C-alpha cells in the first residue's frame, strides 16, 4: 500500500532541489539531459503507477508516450491549434488509447499481459511508421513550444524549458501520489494483491484496471507532448517497444512500486548512459552490467533498497517487497 512517507517526501524534495540547482549551474547540454530526465520521469511515474502498484507490467508505455507526442504534433501542426489545446489533446489521446489497451488486456495476466501490451504498442508503431499523414518514418517537424510569455516564461530558452518540465514532473509525482493514496489507488493495490478477491467483493475489476491504465496513459501522453516540444520534432521511433523496455528498466532500476524510484531510475539511467558514452561506444554493456548488478544486490532497485535499509533501522515497518503478491494459500 502506498504511503507518502517522510523518506519519500525528503527524497522528492532533495531531487527537486538538485534539479533546480543543476539547472542554474550546468551548461546547455546539461539542460538537455535535465529536460530528458524530467520528461522520462513522468512516463516512468506513469509506468510505476500501473506496473508497481497495479501489477500491470506494460511494454507499451513507449507507444503511449509516442501517441501523446503525435497527438500534440498533429493538433498544433496539422490542425493549427494552440499549445495548450495540443497538450490537452496529448493527454486525451494517450489516455484514450491506454484505456482501450487496458480494457481489452485486463483479462490477461503476467507475461501474457506484457505481450498483449507489446502487441498494441507495436501496432501503433507500425501505424505511425507507415502513415503518410504523419510523415511516415521521417516523422513530423516544425513543432512549436507552448507560449507562456504571458506568464513571463520563455520556453524556447533551454533553462526555462528544463524548469518547466521539472515542475510538471513534480506535479505528475504529486498527482500519482494523491491517486495512490485515494480510494482508487488503494483499490488498485488490492487488485494487484488479489484480483479475484477484489472481484468477489463487488469491484468491476476490468473497469478499474482500464481506468488505471488510462490514467497512466494520460500521464504518458503528457510526457509525450513535452517530448514533442523538447525536440520540436516527432518520429515513430518514440513508439518502439525498446523505448518501453528502457522505461521498464528505469522503473525497476529505481525501485518498482516506490514511485520515487521511477524518478530516480530515469535520472540514473540517462546520466549513466551519457557519462559512460563519453568514455566508450560500448555503453550498452556498462548499462547491462549495472542492471545485472542491481538485481543481484537484492532486486529492490535503488530506492527500494534505501527504503528497506531505512525500515531496518527500525524507524518504520518496511514496505512489502515489490514482487507480485499471491493469494494466501495457507
Amino acid at each position, binding site marked *: 500500500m502506498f504511503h507518502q512517507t517522510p523518506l519519500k517526501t525528503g527524497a522528492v524534495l532533495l531531487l527537486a532541489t538538485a534539479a533546480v540547482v543543476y539547472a542554474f549551474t550546468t551548461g546547455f547540454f546539461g539542460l538537455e539531459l535535465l529536460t530528458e530526465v524530467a520528461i522520462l520521469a513522468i512516463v516512468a511515474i506513469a509506468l510505476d503507477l500501473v506496473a508497481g502498484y497495479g501489477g500491470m507490467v506494460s511494454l507499451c508505455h513507449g507507444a503511449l508516450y509516442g501517441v501523446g507526442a503525435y497527438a500534440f504534433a498533429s493538433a498544433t501542426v496539422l490542425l493549427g491549434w494552440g499549445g495548450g489545446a495540443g497538450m490537452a489533446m496529448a493527454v486525451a489521446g494517450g489516455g484514450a488509447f491506454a484505456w482501450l489497451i487496458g480494457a481489452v488486456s485486463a483479462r490477461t495476466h503476467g507475461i501474457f499481459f506484457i505481450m498483449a501490451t507489446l502487441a498494441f504498442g507495436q*501496432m501503433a508503431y507500425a501505424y505511425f511508421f507507415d502513415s503518410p499523414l504523419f510523415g511516415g518514418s521521417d516523422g513530423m517537424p516544425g513543432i512549436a513550444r507552448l507560449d507562456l510569455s504571458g506568464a513571463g516564461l520563455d520556453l524556447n530558452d533551454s533553462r526555462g524549458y528544463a524548469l518547466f518540465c521539472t515542475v510538471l514532473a513534480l506535479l505528475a509525482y504529486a498527482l500519482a501520489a494523491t491517486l495512490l493514496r485515494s480510494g482508487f489507488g488503494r483499490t488498485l493495490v488490492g487488485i494487484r494483491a488479489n484480483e479475484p478477491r477484489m472481484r468477489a467483493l463487488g469491484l468491476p475489476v476490468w473497469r478499474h484496471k482500464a481506468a488505471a491504465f488510462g490514467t497512466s496513459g494520460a500521464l504518458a501522453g503528457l510526457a509525450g507532448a513535452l517530448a514533442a516540444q523538447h525536440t520540436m520534432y516527432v518520429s515513430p521511433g518514440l513508439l518502439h517497444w525498446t523505448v518501453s523496455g528502457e522505461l521498464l528498466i528505469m522503473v525497476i532500476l529505481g525501485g518498482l512500486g516506490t514511485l520515487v524510484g521511477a524518478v530516480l531510475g530515469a535520472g540514473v539511467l540517462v546520466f549513466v548512459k551519457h557519462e559512460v558514452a563519453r568514455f566508450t561506444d560500448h555503453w*550498452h554493456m556498462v548499462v547491462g552490467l549495472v542492471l545485472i548488478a542491481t538485481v543481484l544486490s537484492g532486486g529492490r532497485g535503488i530506492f527500494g533498497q534505501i527504503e528497506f535499509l531505512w525500515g531496518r533501522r527500525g524507524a518504520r515497518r518496511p514496505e512489502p517487497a515489490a514482487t507480485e503478491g499471491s493469494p494466501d494459500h495457507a
Partner: protein
Amino acid sequence: MTADASFWIVQTLNALQLSMLLFLLSVGLTVIFGLLHFVNLAHGSLYALGAFVGVSASAFAGSYWAAFAVAPVAVALVGIVLYVALIRRMRNAGPMNQVLVTFGLIFVFLDLFRLGWGDIPLGMAEPDLFSGRTEFLGIVYPTYRLFIIGLGLVVLAALSLLLSRTQLGAIVRAGVDNGDMAACLGINVERVFFVVFCLGCALAGLAGAVAAPVLSVTTDMGTAILIPTLVVVVIGGLGSLRGAIAGSLLIGFVQTFGAVLAPQAAAVAVYALLAVVLILRPAGLFPARG
C-alpha cells in the same frame, strides 16, 4: 502471371521454412518458461551468438558443418555459465527481476558481438551438400530451405519422443504441470532444470547456425528475433511443445501469406493476431497447465 498451383506450393514451403526456424527458437524458450518459470529475454541473443560462432567456425574450418556442430555446443556452454552464474539464483526472484537481468544480458551480448565481430554485417555460405535447388512437384525450390524444414521436423519428432518416451521427458512434463509435485517425488529437479536449460540454449545456437546462411548475421539479429519468438510462445501457450509448433506455424504462415496477400498489413498482422488470441484465449492456444 503464373500465380498457379506451383506459386502457392512455393509460398507454403516458404511459410514452413520460416515456421521451422521460429520453432527451433521458441521451443527452447517455451520449455524454459514452463518448467523453470524463467523469462529469458536473452534467448534471442543466444541465437545471435550461435550465428556469430557459426560464421567463425565455418570460416575457420572451411565447412558449413563446422558451424552446425560447434554453434550448439558453444551456446550450450555459454548456457552453462549463465545458468550457474545467474539463472539458478534468479529462479525464485520473480518475473520482474528476471526480465531485468536478461534485459541486461541482451545489452552485454550486444556489445560483446560488436567487440568480437565488428559492426559490419556478416554472411555465411550454405553447405555444398544443400546448395542449389531441387525440382519436385513441378516446382524448383532452394535445397537449403528444404533442409531447414526437414531439420525442424526432425527436431520436433525427437523432442516429442524425448518428452513422451523417456524418463527425462516424463519428469519435464510433470514439472511443467506441477513443479511442487515433481519436487515432492524426490526428483532432482535442479539437474533436470539444468539439462533443459542447456538443451534450450543448444537449440537456440543451432537455430542461429541454421539461419546464418539464409540471413545476414548482424549484432542486432538477436533483439530482432526476440519479439517474434515471444509472440510464438505466448500465442502457443507457455510450456507446451504443441503450443510452440502451433504458434510457429501460425506466425510463419500469417507472416508469409500476409506478405503475399496484404503486404501493407504484413507489419501489423502478427501483432493483430497476438492481440486477438490473447483476447479470446488469455493463456494462449495450448497452455500446458490448467
